[in-house]
C-alpha cells in the first residue's frame, strides 16, 4: 500500500469543515492524513445561525456542527486558533502563526470572508482595536461580545440594511434594545430587492419597532472611551450606546495572493475547484471565485465541498461544480421574505408577474423567462415561498396560469362543505366507499335512522367518523321524503323510489333478487305485487341470461352480512367507468 498523502485544509468554517466531513464520510482517511487549520479556537459551528444566537433563539452550544471532539473521533488533526500566514508552494508547506509548519500534498483553502468595514472616523482605539461598543458581526466571538455588551445598554445602531444587518437589528431588539438601522442607499437590501419591496420590508420591520435612516453615510463614531453616537455626512447625528457594522463582506484572499495564486475578487478556480495556476491547491467557499461568482450562501459552499470531496476521494473523480442558482430567506421572526435570482427583468421578453397588497405589506414578484422562474421576491406570504423556490431551483416548467405559483391553494378543501351541498358521487364513508347517493337512496327507501342506514349501506361500519354526516343526511332526506310522499311516483308499492331511482339503486347495490331489493330498500312489509314488479325490473336490469338469484338470503345474516354465492354471476365483468359517479336521483 502506498503511503497516505497529506491533505491540509486552511479554514474550519462552513466550507472547510463541510469538506472534511464529506471527505471522511467518503472514506478519504484511507487515502489521506487530514489536517485542518482553523483561526477560531473552537470547532466548526453553523455561521448561518449566528443571528439566531444574537436574537436569543439558539443557545451558542446548539449551533456547533463539529465540536472539537469530532475531529479526534474521526482521526482528523485540528489546529484550532492558528492563523496561517504563508504558503510555500514549491516546498509544499503551510506556515502557521507561532511557528507551526504543516507539509501538504493537497491543500484546500477555505478562508472564507471578513466583515467589510467602510472608513469612518473614531471607530478604532489607539491600539487598532474597535472602540468599546463598536462591533462587526461575523464570528461566534463577535456574537457573544455583542450580547454581553448589549446587556448594559439601551440603544443600538446597525450600519447596513442588508440581510445580515437586518437580522442583527431584530436580534438586538429581541434583547430589549432600541435599534436604529443606518443604510446607505434608498431602500433596504437593494442588491436583492426592488424599491417597492424594499419599502414594504421596511414598513414590516418598522411595525416590529425598528427605526430606519436611509441614504445616510456614516462618517464618524462618536465617543471618547466608548460609543455614544454616530455622525453622518449630512451633518446629522444619532445617539447610541453601541454600533454593529454590517456593511458586507470581503473574501479573505491575502494568503492566496501572497502565495502567488491567481486572485480577482476571490481565488480563481475552475469547475474542479482547483486553482488556475496550481493543481494541488484548491479553494472553496466564500474565498473562491468560480465563473466570476463569489458565493456567500451556504448551499453553493456545501455543493463545492461535496464536489471537491468526491474528486479527491475518488468517489467521483469527474465530479464538477457548474455554479449555483442563489436564493435566500431573511431570518427575522414575523417577517417572511425570500429572494431568488434576478430582482428585475433583464431581457425584453421577460415576464414580470406581480401581486401587491400594501395593506398587509404583501409583495410577490416573479421574473419568468422562457417559461421558467429566473427571479423572485416573495414578501409577506410564507406559504407561497417553497413552491416558487423549488420551481426556481429546478428550473421546472411553470403552469400556464402563473397565479397557481403565487397563490398556493393551501386549504384546498376550502371551508367545510355542508353535506347537503355535496354531489351524489361524493364519498361519505371512506372505509366502505359509500357515496352520498347510496345513503340518500337508503333513507328514501325507508331507513329513517342512522343505525338502519348504516346497516343497509355499511356506512359508518369502519372507523365511524362519518356518522355525523350520515345523521345529517337522514335528517335532511327524511324531511324531503315526507314532503315528497304525496306526489312520489313509486314503481312498486312499499319502496319510495321512482323507476329510474330504483333501477339506479338496484345496480349500485348489486341486488339480484326481489327479496334482496325488499330487504335493502323497502319501508315495511313485503307485498306480492311489489315482488312481481321487482322480478320484472330485475330481469330488465340484469337480463334474461344472467342468473339472478331468488331468495338466497340466509336467515342469520342481515343485509349487513356479505352473501357470496357460487357461481357468483358476473364476477369477472369489470366496469370501465372512471369514478363512481352514478346519480341515483
Amino acid at each position, binding site marked *: 500500500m502506498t503511503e497516505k498523502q497529506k491533505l491540509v485544509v486552511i479554514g474550519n468554517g462552513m466550507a472547510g469543515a463541510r469538506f472534511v466531513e464529506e471527505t471522511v464520510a467518503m472514506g478519504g482517511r484511507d487515502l489521506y492524513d487530514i489536517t485542518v487549520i482553523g483561526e477560531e479556537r473552537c470547532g466548526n*459551528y453553523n455561521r448561518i445561525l449566528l443571528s*439566531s444566537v444574537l436574537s436569543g433563539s439558539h*443557545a451558542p452550544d*446548539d449551533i*456547533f*456542527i463539529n*465540536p472539537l471532539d*469530532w475531529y479526534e473521533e474521526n482521526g482528523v488533526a485540528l489546529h484550532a486558533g492558528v492563523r496561517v500566514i504563508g504558503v510555500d508552494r514549491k516546498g509544499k508547506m503551510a506556515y502557521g502563526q507561532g511557528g507551526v509548519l504543516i507539509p501538504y500534498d493537497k491543500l484546500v483553502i477555505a478562508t472564507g470572508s471578513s466583515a467589510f468595514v467602510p472608513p469612518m472616523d473614531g471607530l478604532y482605539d489607539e491600539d487598532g482595536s474597535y472602540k468599546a461598543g463598536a462591533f462587526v458581526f461575523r464570528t461566534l466571538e463577535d456574537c457573544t461580545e455583542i450580547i454581553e455588551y448589549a446587556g448594559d445598554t439601551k440603544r443600538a445602531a446597525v450600519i447596513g440594511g442588508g440581510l445580515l444587518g437586518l437580522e442583527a437589528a431584530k436580534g438586538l431588539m429581541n434583547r430589549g434594545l432600541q435599534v436604529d438601522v443606518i443604510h446607505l442607499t434608498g431602500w433596504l437590501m437593494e442588491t436583492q430587492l426592488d424599491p417597492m419591496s424594499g419599502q414594504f420590508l421596511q414598513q414590516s420591520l418598522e411595525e416590529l419597532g425598528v427605526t430606519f435612516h436611509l441614504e445616510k453615510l456614516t462618517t464618524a463614531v462618536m465617543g471618547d472611551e466608548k460609543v455614544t453616537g454616530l455622525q453622518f455626512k449630512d451633518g446629522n447625528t444619532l445617539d447610541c450606546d453601541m454600533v454593529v457594522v454590517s456593511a458586507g463582506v470581503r473574501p479573505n484572499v491575502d494568503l492566496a495572493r501572497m502565495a502567488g495564486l491567481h486572485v480577482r475578487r476571490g481565488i480563481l478556480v475552475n469547475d474542479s475547484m482547483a486553482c488556475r495556476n496550481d493543481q494541488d491547491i484548491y479553494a472553496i467557499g466564500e474565498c473562491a471565485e468560480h465563473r466570476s461568482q463569489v458565493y456567500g450562501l451556504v*448551499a453553493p459552499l456545501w455543493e463545492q465541498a461535496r464536489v471537491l470531496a468526491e474528486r479527491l476521494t475518488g468517489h467521483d473523480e469527474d465530479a464538477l461544480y457548474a455554479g449555483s442558482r442563489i436564493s435566500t*430567506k431573511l431570518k427575522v421572526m414575523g417577517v*417572511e421574505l425570500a429572494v431568488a435570482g434576478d430582482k428585475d427583468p433583464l431581457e425584453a421578453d421577460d415576464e414580470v408577474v406581480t401581486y401587491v397588497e400594501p395593506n398587509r405589506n404583501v409583495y410577490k414578484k416573479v421574473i419568468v423567462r422562457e417559461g421558467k422562474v429566473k427571479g423572485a421576491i416573495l414578501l409577506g406570504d410564507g*406559504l407561497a*415561498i*417553497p*413552491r416558487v*423556490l*423549488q420551481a426556481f*431551483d*429546478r428550473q*421546472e*416548467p411553470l*403552469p400556464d396560469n402563473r397565479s*397557481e405559483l403565487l397563490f398556493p391553494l393551501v386549504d384546498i*378543501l376550502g371551508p367545510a362543505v355542508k353535506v347537503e351541498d355535496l354531489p351524489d358521487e361524493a364519498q361519505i364513508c*371512506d*372505509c366502505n*366507499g359509500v357515496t352520498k347517493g347510496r345513503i340518500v337512496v337508503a333513507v328514501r327507501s325507508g331507513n329513517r335512522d*342512522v*343505525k338502519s342506514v*348504516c*346497516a343497509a349501506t*355499511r356506512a359508518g*361500519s*369502519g*372507523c*365511524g*367518523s362519518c*356518522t355525523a354526516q350520515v345523521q345529517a343526511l337522514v335528517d335532511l332526506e327524511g324531511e324531503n321524503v315526507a314532503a315528497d310522499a304525496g306526489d312520489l311516483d313509486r314503481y312498486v308499492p312499499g319502496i319510495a323510489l321512482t323507476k329510474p331511482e330504483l333501477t339506479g339503486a338496484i345496480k349500485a347495490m*348489486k341486488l339480484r333478487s326481489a327479496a334482496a331489493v325488499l330487504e335493502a330498500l323497502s319501508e315495511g312489509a313485503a307485498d306480492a305485487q311489489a315482488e312481481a314488479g321487482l322480478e320484472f325490473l330485475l330481469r330488465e336490469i340484469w337480463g334474461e341470461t344472467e342468473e339472478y338469484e331468488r331468495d338466497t338470503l*340466509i336467515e*342469520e*345474516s342481515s343485509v*349487513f*352480512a*356479505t*352473501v*357470496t*354465492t*357460487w357461481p*357468483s354471476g*358476473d*364476477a*369477472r*365483468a*369489470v*366496469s*370501465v367507468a*372512471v*369514478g*363512481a359517479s352514478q346519480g341515483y336521483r
Partner: protein
Amino acid sequence: MQQVNDQMDSNAGATATHCPYCAFQCGMRISAAGKEIAVTGDAEFPVNKGALCIKGWTAAATLTHPERLTTPLARNESGVLVPVSWDAALDRVAQGFKDAQGAYGKDAAGIFGGGSLTNEKSYLLGKFARVALQTSNIDYNGRFCMSSAAAASIGSLGIDRGLPFPLADIAGAEVVLMTGSNSAETMPPLMQYFEEQRANGGMLIVADPRLTATASRADLHLRLTPGTDSALANGILHILMRDGRLDQDYIDARTEGFDHIKGTIATYWPERVERITGVPQRELERAARLLGEAGAAMVLTGRGTEQQAQGVNNVRSFINLALALGLIGRPNSGYGCLTGQGNGQGGREHGQKADQLPGYRRIDDPAARAHVAAVWGVDEARIPGPGKSAYEMLDSLGLEGGVMALLVMGSNVVVSAPNARHVVDRLRSLDFLAVSDFFRSETAELADVVLPAAQWAEEEGTMTNLEGRVIRRRRVTNPPADVRDDVSVICELAERLGEGRHFRYSGAEEIFHELGRASAGGPADYAGITYAKIDANNGVFWPCPDADHAGTPRMFVDGFPTASGRARFHAVRHGSPAEEPDADYPLYLTTGRNLAQYQSGTQTRRVEELTSMTPLPLAEIHPATASRYQLEEGSGVTLVTRRGAANFNVKVTRGIREDTVFVPFHWGGVQAANRLTNPALDPTSRMPEFKVCAVRIEAALRSNDKGE
C-alpha cells in the same frame, strides 16, 4: 359506533377468526351454510371492536370464486398448464429442486415467502429452506414492506415490534405525527382510534406528498417533497432543540449518542428544511410546537417513509425525534411503525428472512444457531448462513451463482416487486418455478407447477397483528376437495427431499409449540404462548417467555433490549433519492394503495364489489401539471421511467403536489406500477425505493406495448 356494533352481535355463535387482508387483522365472525359464507365484524374483539372496511366485508368472495385454483397444475410438453395429481405435482417440485441443487449446488434452490402466511407457515418455510433444502436463499415480500422500519428499530431500540404499545394508547395521545401512511384507505378500522383521539382533544399531523384521505382528516398536513423525510424529521428536531423543548432528563437517563447527533441537527435550520422539503417554515414550526407542548405524543411511520433507498435512515430520524422528546416507553406515547401485510409482523420474526432464525434471531449469531439447531434436531453446521435479500434473489434468478429453482408461496412478485419487467425476465430464465396460490396470479402464469392453496377461512394457525398481538386464525369451512394447506405441501416436499422426519406434525398447534421452543430466549419470544392462552385473552402480546407470563402490551417501560439498556440516537444526514427528476423524466413518481384493493390485487381484483368501486388504476395528477400535458379527467396516459412504461387513467386532483404523480400498485400487466419503480436498495435493509423515482408523462397510450 356503538349502535353499529349492536348490529354485529346478531351473528354471535359463528366462528371467530380474522380478516385475510391487512395487519390490523380485524376480528370477524363467520358462518358457513353450505356454499354460502357470511361475514360480520366481531364486536367482542378489542382491536377493531366490530368495525370492518369494504375489503373485510367482501372477504368471503374469494373462497368460492369461480377462478379459484382447485387442482394442481403443471406445464405439459406444449408448455400449457394442465391439471395433474398432487403426487405428480409434488414429485415435480421436488425434482426441480434436486436437479438445480445437483447441477449448481445447494444455494441454487430458493424460497420466496409472504407476509400473509401464518406464523406456523412462515416458521415452517424457514425450517424447510434450512433443513430440507439446506439453502441460504429464502426471503419474502415483507422485505418490500417492513425491513426498513425493522432495521431502524433494532438499531435504535434493540428490537422491532411494529407498535410497541397497544392500539388503545393512540386514543390518549395528545399529538400524533404520522408520516407516509394513508391508513384511512389502507387500514380504515384503525381510524376509529384517531377519531377517539381527536374527540379527546388530540391533534393529528400527517406528513405525505399527497392530501390523502388520512391527511384530509389531519389538523396539520405537511406536504413534503417525495424523498425528503429525514430532512423533515431533522428540521422538526432542530426547532425543538432550539426552543428547549427536549426531555433532557430522559435523554440523560435512557439514551446514548445524543451529543453525536446535535451537530447534524444544527445543520437542519428551518429555512434550509423548507427548501429541501417544500414544507413552509410556518408549518414546520407549528408541527414542532404541537409535538413539543404535548404531554403525550406519538410518531408513527408507514411505507411512504420506509420504502426508500434511505428508508432505514428516514425511520432512524423519526425515532431520534421520539427519543429526544422522551416519548418511548411512556403511556400514550412513543414510536411505532404501521405494519402493512396481514402477518407482516409475525412473518418477519420466525425465520422467513434471509438473515434470520426463529424468534427474530440472527442467523450469523452462533448461540442462536446452536439453540435453533437443537430444537430442530440437526447439526448446527448444517444450517446455512445469510442468503440473498428479496430483490437481490429475484435479480439473481437463472444467473450464475443465483437461484435456479424457486418456490413462491403467498406472493405475487410479478406485480409487487420493483422493476417488474426485469423480474419477469428473471423468472422466465429459471430452470424451475413453482407457485402456491389461490388464483392464477401473474406470477403463477409463469410457473412450471402451480399448487392450489387453502385460504384463510380454511386453515388453522396464528397471526401477529401490528401491535405484536398473537391471534388465532380459525377454520370455518373446508377447502375444495383437491386444495391443500401449505403446511402439508411443505411437509410432503420435505418427505420427497429425504428430510421428512423433521417435518411430521399433527397440526398447526404442534408447529406453534415447536415455534415457541425455537423462539425461546430470542427477541420475539413466543415460548409462553399457547392457543388456549390466545383464546382466553383475545390474543397475547409477545414477548411472552413462559407459561405464567401474561405477555407484554407495552414495551420499553423499564429499559431497552440493547447492550447498554439504553436507546441509541443515530446521526442522519438526508440524501437525495437514487433518482431525481431531470429534463428527460421531469416529475416524481410515488406509489401506494387504494381503499378497495389490496397489495398485488390477486384477491381483491377478483371481488366484484371491490373492482366496481375501483375498476382501474388512476394516476393522480395536479391540475396545473395535467394542463401542461393537455390531460383531462379520465384521459389515458402512459407513464415512462428508465425501467419501463405503464398505462393509467388520469385523475386530476389538487390533492397532489404539482411535481408528483401518484399511482396505485394493485394491477398487473401494462397497468403495473412496479414496471416503473426503481430497485435501488437501502444499504442496510435492502428495501427497494418504491416510493420515489423520476417519471415522464406521455399522453397517448402506446398500443404496441402489450406487456407480459
